[in-house]
């Protein structure tokens, strides 16, 4: 059984990883950076939601998810 804290940590980690991965796509294309396009904006929004949601779940501790 997964707890709220564990779920929160997983979501936060997933959101953070996704954010870095999305931005890294542009960083790897250094020199050809054309801004954050609409698809990246959608993906970054999703990643941000995951991260924030995860952070707010962590304080809920060992309650079952």
């Amino acid at each position, binding site marked *: *059984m*997964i707890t*709220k804290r564990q*779920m929160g940590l997983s979501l936060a980690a997933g959101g953070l990883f996704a954010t870095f991965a999305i931005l890294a796509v542009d960083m790897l294309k250094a020199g050809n950076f054309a801004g954050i*396009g*609409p*698809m990246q904006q*959608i993906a970054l929004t*999703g990643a941000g939601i995951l991260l924030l*949601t995860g952070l*707010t*779940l962590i304080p*809920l501790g060992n309650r*079952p*998810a």
Partner: protein
Amino acid sequence: MTEFRSRLSGNLPQVGWRHLAYLLVALALLVFVGYFIAYNIYAISLFQFPFDYDQGEGFELMDTVLFSRGEWPYLNNDSYPFYSSNYPPVFHLVIVPLIWIFGPKYWTGRLVAYLGTLITAAVIGYAVQRESKRWWLSTLAGLAFLASNYVYHVGPLFRQHMFMVMFETVAVVLLTATINAEETTGKKDNRRLLLVMILLLLAGYTKQLAYATVAAVFTFLFLRQSKRAILWAIAFAGVTGIIFLLINLSTNGQWLTNTVTANINPYIPSQGIGLLRQWFKLHTILILLASALALYQLYFERLSAYAIWFVFAAANGLTSGKWGAGESYFATAIAASCILAGIAIGRGLSWSERRGERWFAIALTVVAMLFLIQANKVFHWPTHTPLLEKVATTLGKPKETFVAPQTSCSLPREVVAIPYIDSAGVGLIGRPPNAEDTAAGVTISQLISEGDSASFGEDAGFNFYLGRDIITNPTQLLNLYNNGQVDLTEMSAMLENQEFDTVVLRAQFYPPPILEIIGRQYLTRHLVEMNGFVYCILTPKDLGE
């Protein structure tokens, strides 16, 4: 006497309010039953229409015909008849017995798809009833699904999407019931869980999009019983993979090419975001209630399978931005939201009942008003009879929509009035086809019959009507062409040599090189309007033309 009168006068306003509230609930029920009637009018009209209403229906019929002959529809598109399916087989296999009995008829698949939506609605109602124990609420939840513009548009078409939604809905509801029972009794029920897995497998092999529901189910299971979820996930993935490999081997790799590679299409962000916004605008009440309950469960309770399913399905709705995708990609999220909204309302009513009669009356009134607001948001109504028109005008709605016939191969045409209103916007899907549309289809077929060959065309219906070969699946060809997976040499040569006596275009979905050859070797001779689309009938150019 004074005490009696005092008690009565104290009770009367509360009894009156409750009655008024139930009257509003009855009104809401009436409205949603009205939508159900409209849905049946549309479905019955479609059952009687013998040609393609929506692009692609004829190819689903062709897939079913091939299965009925014991043949795979996953074929090499390089050679005549340049046809292949891009969808998994379950929906078509279910319809095969009807093809054996009645022959290649459009109504067979439309009927099965329609019945699938009724099953989905019934299962939604059952899910809500399990928790709320209020029959009127369960009925409204189920009817709210059928009342959605998106479900109405696509439900009775010969398309597999809604059949997938049926399997998904049954799977998630059964999963919920199974886990609830296990947690109550303390005994594992692997048989029922196996049934859930079979339903998920059927959903995935109806349409690939079911992966979102599969992910939701295993996420829920992982949260509740992590080890068990992993074991079942391994088994599920194994079985799915084995079936995939077996089909791929049997079709010499055409299964992978046509159902996976050909579905890799460009993503159009504005399309995805636009449909997301429209989905929210049309289903606001359901989405807000579902979201509220999901958030409540996230922070204050255990997450239900419904809540996880809703979030995954809503996120997956963004894939509607893929070229060739559309509003139906939100159908799963709509089903999930109907269940969650119904449960949320049931809980709210129970809470208010505990607080007293007045609170309950107020809550009931609010619930009825919310359903009426939701009903107004999804307003869609055919107006082709005086009675139907009267209903629309009485409700303050227009009696017709103005839209120009869609054409890609002729000059633009003037807008015309069509007897169908839809809050989802001006479009050509949703208006019940009529006798004029059937006559137009017969005219096109007669024009094709003046030649000897099957027509090279974007709708399969005319060749079916004439008993000729079904040639090409244009959107499939275009997808394969864009992914470098089709050799157009033979097709090009046949068109260059004018071996097809007729070409029938509607949306010009063919790969550009094919359209270029058609433009050089064929000439538009007739324009026929059917279902609000202009069909261009071309025959070979003579020398000097």
